[in-house]
Each structure stands twice: as structure tokens, then as C-alpha cells.
């Protein structure tokens, strides 16, 4: 053993701990989704102004929602599993918001505009009872789609059976049009309460 030993070991320990702390955001997250949730919570994330077409064929922009909080999820209408649960959750939240007269809107965005034309979106809206407050929409062009997926950090991978696997998160956008929370699926009443609180901060 030489004098160099404590120096080298100290160096290695500090570098190792620093790298581990960096990769886990200070020992708080181990997944990329967790890291993203934490990042958005600390620093609201601006969103691109993307053109979308809804289930009635009408065009609108994401920025049209400014002034009111917005809950967003990502879907594709052929989705057999996850989206149907999310559809029921969104319907329940819409009812709760109606009853409480809560100022909040709902938007389900399809990441599969190739298959999801207005007709498909309308069928989806009918299936889950999407009323005025809740729109089902798809971006009008490919750059808009990729800008949306990138800024919401939605990763879509093929499921090997013609469908897709995608993030199941619910995104809270505040009245200034910034992404302020990424929420894991939970009871609709809790999601709604968390969203209203986060958007009002």
C-alpha cells in the first residue's frame, strides 16, 4: 500500500457516487419515466403549438386551450387494452368535472393519424361518451405528430401484432399551456384532484 491508495480509492468512490447520483437524479428515480416526471414537476415544460383535427373534423390548435387547465392522454383508436381503461377513466373524470363545475378540459390525442381519421375518432368518442369538454383528435401532419410525441416524451413501439405499446401516463397542462405534471394511472377522482391542484400552482 502506498500514499496513492487512499487518493485513488477516494477518487474512484467520488466519481462512482457522482455517476450513480446523476443517473438516478439524486437516488430518486431508476426509470426514464420517473426521471421525466421529476423533471416536469421541477420545471414546467413549454409545448409546441400543433394543429389537430377532432372527431367532428374541425381544426384547432393546442394553444386554443390556454386559459384553462387541460388533461391529455395519448391513444390509438384500435387499442384493445390500455386505451379502453383510459377511455373509461377519462369519461369518469369528465363526469366528476361536470358535477363539480371544475374548469378543466380533456383531450385524447391519437398518435396514429394514418389509421385514425375523423370517422375512427368519432367512433372512439361515441364508445366512451366523449362530450363537449372532451375532444378526441389527431395531429394534421407528421411534423406536428413528432413535435407532440417529443415534447410530451411519449414513446410508441410496435407490439408485434399490428398494434402499439405506449406510455399510459396522463399529462396535466396548465392554463399557460405548459406541461406541469405527468401522472401515473390512478383512481379518476384522485387524478382529477391532483391535476386541478398542479394546474393552479
Amino acid at each position, binding site marked *: *500500500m502506498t500514499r*496513492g491508495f487512499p487518493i485513488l480509492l477516494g477518487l474512484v468512490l467520488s466519481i462512482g457516487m457522482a455517476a450513480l447520483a446523476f443517473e*438516478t437524479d439524486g437516488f430518486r428515480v431508476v426509470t426514464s419515466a420517473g426521471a421525466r416526471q421529476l423533471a416536469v414537476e421541477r420545471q414546467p415544460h413549454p409545448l409546441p403549438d400543433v394543429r389537430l383535427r377532432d372527431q367532428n373534423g374541425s381544426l384547432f390548435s393546442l394553444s386554443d386551450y390556454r386559459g384553462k387547465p387541460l388533461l391529455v392522454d395519448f391513444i390509438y383508436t384500435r387499442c384493445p387494452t390500455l386505451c379502453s381503461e383510459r377511455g373509461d377513466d377519462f369519461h369518469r373524470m369528465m363526469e366528476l368535472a361536470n358535477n363539480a363545475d371544475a374548469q378543466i378540459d380533456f383531450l385524447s390525442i391519437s398518435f396514429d393519424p394514418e389509421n385514425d381519421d375523423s370517422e375512427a375518432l368519432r367512433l372512439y368518442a361515441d364508445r366512451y361518451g366523449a362530450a363537449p369538454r372532451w375532444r378526441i383528435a389527431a395531429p394534421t401532419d407528421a411534423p406536428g405528430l413528432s413535435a407532440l410525441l417529443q415534447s410530451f416524451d411519449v414513446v410508441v413501439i410496435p407490439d408485434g401484432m399490428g398494434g402499439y405499446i405506449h406510455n399510459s401516463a396522463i399529462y396535466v397542462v396548465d392554463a399557460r399551456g405548459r406541461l406541469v405534471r405527468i401522472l401515473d394511472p390512478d383512481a379518476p377522482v384522485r387524478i382529477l384532484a391532483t391535476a386541478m391542484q398542479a394546474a393552479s400552482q
Partner: protein
Amino acid sequence: MNARTIAISAAASWLILSLPPLRLALEREMAVQMAVQMPLLIAVGVLLAGWVRRYEPHWLDDADWLGISGIVLVVFGTSIWMLPRALDEAVGEPLVDLAKFLSLPLLVGLPLGLSWRRMPPLGRAFIWANFIPKLGAIGGLYLAAPTRLCAYYRLDQQNLAGWTLIAIAVALGLTSFFAAFVGWTPSCGKHLPPVAATGAGSESTLHAAPHILA
């Protein structure tokens, strides 16, 4: 092998592994990234150690007393690259993948190759006895998670990765059990590390660990 052959084959393997078609093919399955690509990248570093050792300054040989500092670096490196976030971002973010391709050979494989020979037999046994359960535990965590931990991998791929890590842990555990209690060593080389190996100083100890560390 002479020094130059070692250096060239290490560089060539590193280059081949980083070629986009092979890189993407190995990263398509979570289990393959963890149990094939990462160990191969570590092996490149271990191979490189065979060349670097010839030019290793005396002070480093002194300062890396009993190989402790080197093996601590290895433990940190392997732990970080077992996290779901690291696996995920290696697929989704080119810069993180670059970090993986640099850090696994240079900060894990190379120190492993250099320090392993300096470690006493009991120290090596300690590292094995730590690494094997950790591998099994991480595999168990991947299996137990009800949701996907990586955005880029499906749940069935995550399960396969979990079972693969557990299978490797069981294989390593059985091997080291027999090595420790029966004195049997794998036929591919008497000096291979699992626990009972005491071949310190032998060239072949170097080629031992890479295929197992993930």
C-alpha cells in the same frame, strides 16, 4: 498473443460492436442488450487490459492496492448499467449509447482486467458472492414489476430479461458452488475466477470474468 495483436483485436471488436446494424440488433431485445452486448463491451476492455498492462506505470500498480480501487469502479459501472433508466436511454438517446460504448470497455472492462490479478483469492470470492445474488435480485425485480420499466421495451421483453438474469445467476451460483466445495473448475481453464481459482498472475485469469458480468 503479443501486445499489438491484443490491442488490434480489442479495437476491432469494439468497432464491430458499434456498427449500427449489429448495435441496433443487439439492443432490440432487453435480454440481449443486458446478457450479450454489455458483457461483450466489458470483454473488449478486459482484452484491452492485456495490452495496457505492459505500459501500466508503476505508481498505478502501487496505488491500486489489492485491486480495490479498480474493482470498486467495476462495481459502480455494472450497477449503473443495470438500471432500467440506463438501458432505456441507451436505446433512445445516442449520447447515452455513446457513454455506454465508452464506459463499459474503459471504466469497467479495463479496470477489471488490470485489478483482478492484484486481488487476493478471498477478495475475488467476495466479489463473486456479491455479484451473483445481485444479478438474481435485479432479474427478480424485473419479473416482479407489474408495469413496464423501460419505455422502449415491452413487458414480455422485460420478463425475458428477468428470467435471463436469473438463469445466469443460477448457472454462476452452481459453478462457483462446485468450484468452492468440490474443487472442480470449468474445463475452459483452470485459472478462471469462480471462487476457488487462485491463479493470480496468470495470463488466463484475465479472460475470465467478462462473459458473466452484465
